């Protein structure tokens, strides 16, 4: 697993060597690109803030718990253990929040149990759909997202089911 630690340095070294080889002014180019970061983050900030506020409100108001309770039997039917339901529900909204839940799952059930492994694979197959959609579409003229979000959520659900299945087999 140590290999993964080397990927980023290798990419960067390769890039720099390649740009020297291509006779590019590395410093100026980097600065030019980096300049854009500030504006970009500034322009996506309100969108992220709104979506995160909504999630926080849902969690403290107890709506999330109600949703977990309602959906648990459905998920069970699809082969998703009840223990990971909260993770599955929160995952589309918040990255850091779902990592916190994942950590809880490890602490309660153990990382090497079926539940623990299931949760790990679910994290790998799913994405923070709402967050990604908000950020990606915030800089476009699009007003109606059509079927984009339901489809993305459906794919996440499919990924979750597959994740539980694969964990059962392997």
């Amino acid at each position, binding site marked *: 697993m140590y290999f993964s630690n080397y990927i980023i340095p290798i990419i960067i070294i390769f890039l720099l060597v390649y740009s020297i080889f291509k006779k590019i002014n590395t410093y100026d180019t980097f600065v030019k690109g980096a300049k854009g970061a500030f504006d970009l983050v500034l322009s996506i900030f309100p969108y992220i803030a*709104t979506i995160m506020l909504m999630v926080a409100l849902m969690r403290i108001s107890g709506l999330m718990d109600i949703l977990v309770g309602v959906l648990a039997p459905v998920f069970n039917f699809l082969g998703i253990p009840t223990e990971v339901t909260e993770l599955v529900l929160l995952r589309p909204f918040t990255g850091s929040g779902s990592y916190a839940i994942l950590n809880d799952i490890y602490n309660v059930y153990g990382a090497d149990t079926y539940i623990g492994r299931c949760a790990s694979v679910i994290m790998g197959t799913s994405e923070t759909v709402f967050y990604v959609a908000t950020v990606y579409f915030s800089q476009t003229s699009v007003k109606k997202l059509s079927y984009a979000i339901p489809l993305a959520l459906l794919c996440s659900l499919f990924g979750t089911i597959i994740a539980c299945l694969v964990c059962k087999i392997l």
Partner: protein
Amino acid sequence: MMLISVVALIFTDPEIIITEMTNTSLEVLQLCVELMAIYTIWMGLLEIVDASGLGKKLAKLLSPLIRWLFKVKDPETTKYIALNMSSNMLGLGNASTPMGIKAMQKLDPKTGAITPAMIMLLIINSTAIQFLPTTVIGLRASSGSLSPSDILIPTILATMATCVFGILMAKLCEKIFFKNKPSSQSGGENISFKNYIQKPISNTKQNKK
């Protein structure tokens, strides 16, 4: 949804609402500062990729795939999509976001209507093939797992299946929703749970005006 939550809170615990909202805003601000730091690095490097012509090479390499998935020919757009996809595969989620935003802007028809290509990009990003789930492995190791990387193969299998499923579904939906309509119209009127799902997005969109 925000409204329902606030109403529910009035019955349960009205005091914590402002504290909680402020805390969340603060968290988001913190997240944005972190993002800014990360984006600075990646957007700087991206500019080098761009200037050195590596981006074009990568785009050329992936262009058959991208042409099939997105039906785009514009080399600039292809380049950003190629960069977005390849950084996603390496598990560099934070690097892929700025490129994804740029690709999305290039795909934007500027008419306010969504295109199949934009949906495809969202689906690919939300099913995100991940070959190295580094964060999860790190978490497993710190919670005392005997073999933290044990989940690697299941993850790769599941994520690939999901991605293929996503692409197929996106293609299918494209056929259904965009078939009889001129491309300038969005085909979202007949989705039943649209109202439930789209609230957060439409809220944020309205603020934009």
